[in-house]
């Protein structure tokens, strides 16, 4: 028979990509370390890390989302239990990074497969996301340091309203109509 269909490569492995998964887990571990100021907080972040790892292991989005949520909750708990501001802020950055990179790993795995070379894209996403986090953390901490006479309530109030306004605006913003580079 001339119609030989065997010896094909076979269906592609659509599991999350290794690089982004590893980076996501590293971010999760950092979150756990940064939240180690209270048992509740550490427990929540470790649970989040576990669920995130599980989600990346089986290649499902919902555990990754839940794991990211647990990491965030752990950071908030650490902040409430007297963790330094720097640790809380960095912890939040790494928690969101873990969720972001985990989701990136899932998306790339689903669309291109684990075996496809995608590292340059993954690294770019990771660097960009980390830069965004640092780009917010550094000025925020700087403002906090610059404030000379403690933190007047009126200023804090004003800034909070600014943040709230920006959330309202951002939730209405459509990423599709964003500015074109």
């Amino acid at each position: 028979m001339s119609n030989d269909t065997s010896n094909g490569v076979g269906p592609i492995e659509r599991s999350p990509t290794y690089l982004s998964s590893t980076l996501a887990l590293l971010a999760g571990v950092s979150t756990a370390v940064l939240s180690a100021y209270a048992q509740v907080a550490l427990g929540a972040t470790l649970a989040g890390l576990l669920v995130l790892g599980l989600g990346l292991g089986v290649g499902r989005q919902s555990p990754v989302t839940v794991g990211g949520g647990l990491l965030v909750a752990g950071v908030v708990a650490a902040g409430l239990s007297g963790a330094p501001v720097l640790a809380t802020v960095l912890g939040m950055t790494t928690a969101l990074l873990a969720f972001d990179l985990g989701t990136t790993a899932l998306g790339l795995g689903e669309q291109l497969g684990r075996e496809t070379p995608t590292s340059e894209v993954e690294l770019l996403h990771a660097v960009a996301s980390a830069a965004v986090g640092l780009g917010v953390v550094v000025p925020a901490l700087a403002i906090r340091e610059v404030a000379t006479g403690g933190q007047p309530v009126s200023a804090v109030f004003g800034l909070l309203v600014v943040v709230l306004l920006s959330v309202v605006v951002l939730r209405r913003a459509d990423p599709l109509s964003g500015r074109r580079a």
Partner: protein
Amino acid sequence: MNRRRVLVAAGFGLFAVSLAELVQPGVSPIPGDELLLTAVGAVALLYAVAAALARRRTGPERVETPDVELPEPATVPGGDIAAVLQRFPGAERVYAGAGTSRRNGLRRVAVAVLTRYRGLEPAAARQRVAEGVWTDDSDAARFLADRRLSSSLGQRVRRFVAPDSGRERALDRTVDAIAAVAGVQTDEESPGDPETTNETGTAHLAGKTGVRRRTRHWAGVSVVVLVCLAVGLLLEEPGVLLAGVVAVGYAAYARVGPQTSVDLSGARSLADSEPDPGDDVAVTVTVTNEGGFCPDLRIVDGVPESLAVTDGSPRRGVRLREGESVTFSYTVRARQGTHEFGPTQVLARSLSNSTEQELAVGSETTVTAVPSLRPVQEPVPLRRQPTQYAGRAPTDSGGEGIEFHTVREYKPGDSMTRIDWNRRARTGELTTLEFRRERATRVVLLVDARSTARVGHDPGAPDAVERSIGATQRVFPALLSEGHQVGIAAFGPAECFLAPDTGTSHRQRGRDLLATHPAFNENPGPDETRHTWGLRFRKQLPDNTQLVLFSPLLDLRVVRVVRTLEAHGHPVTVLSPDPTATGTPGQRLMRARRRLLVTDLRQTGVPVLDWAPGTPLAETLKREVATR
């Protein structure tokens, strides 16, 4: 939009004032009150709850990419029992619906099968079915019986607990019992995996090309912001508040982050666009960025559904700067026929992952693999039908030849070599030996290429049409070299007829036709062959032409075609690649149905060569020649 601008402007103004207040307390006209802060916290909390509740879908949404590496799997016939019951030979008026009608259909089919295989009169068969004594399987017997038969306790419990599953089970067992009467056993080799039987490959580009859509990659970040604000304010924790600010940064990144205007061009080159079947062909794909920086391009090349990737990957994830291009290559195994590469599918994501644009770049490329003809070594069992040309097909009339036919009285003019000298010596009588006259015949190889024939016993194996074409490619040169005039035609919606002829150029024409004609290489889809097909085909067919039909013999239409051709003086030999499997009850019923059709044809005197998968063609031919 205007409201949004006002909000943004107000935000910036407030931000500036607050900064000034931080550096130089007392500048701001804003009142500072702990109570106000708590109120803002409460508002944030409410907003967070509302935002969380308003999220209809949770996860990110992505464009799915097809499994281009795999060839389209063949469909195993018999996925739908109702469809198999429809037009079951001998039970034509079967109404295939749900519930009792399906039971009625099965009754008719059971009667039909009992009539054929047990030699019962239809009335007797009907009675047996009604009484439930036609099979040993009590579930099956009860399912088709007229009155309720006593059932065991276990069966009653099962019916009580799960009435629906019990009915489905009884249906399956009945189907199996009917198939068993027709000689189809459950434990026969069953390559058909029920999980994969009904799936067909979808290698088409998903979604609309060029549309940018959001991926919801960052879904949930604004909820994190609001929760942090609310908790931080209500519990007066600056760290948590600042953490909320971090999340705002990500929300902004997701919503208003840089968007790329994507402008790509693609090119594909093949190492060999006319390979031999079975050869590995290297495919090189180049995608060039004609627009701005693209941070994330997910490229999937449009490998034809019919080809398998044997080495490398037709996928790549890259970032491309302006004017940059990426080149990658992979290998496909060529199969006979013309295969078209589709455009390359590209998913362009923004840096923040929040939008995704699907594009199709590059042109279509074609690869054509024409096999060299390898004539089958065994003689092809043709029907007796001579032309005036000398050839190798034995006829029923005596004359010159090799094989002994009859003895007749000597007539003056008979060749001396044909006089029976032994007899002359013994009795003194002068007799002439007659040999079987060998003549060439005119044959048209007819391939059933309808979409209903595009089924196979295993999703990974070639379907019946591919096997038929493969067999035609071997029978065609074999018959030509025996001196016959051979033509080729397709039974299907696409017109294809090569009139019987001989000669080297004709051989070449047939070879190209089989490999590249769309009638053989493209799935015509569900639209059926026209009802006038038989009439038009007979008009093209020269007189004194016999046919070799390659068909899986799955429906009554092809049987009717055979009978009509026979009635018009065109003897037909059927070579039938068996596409049926025994993985599910439906598949077993399909095998039983096909057996009935084969038996029917054989009873009308049409030789049917049942070609099981895995058996070499030569062996099937040899067996047929031996039994004649």
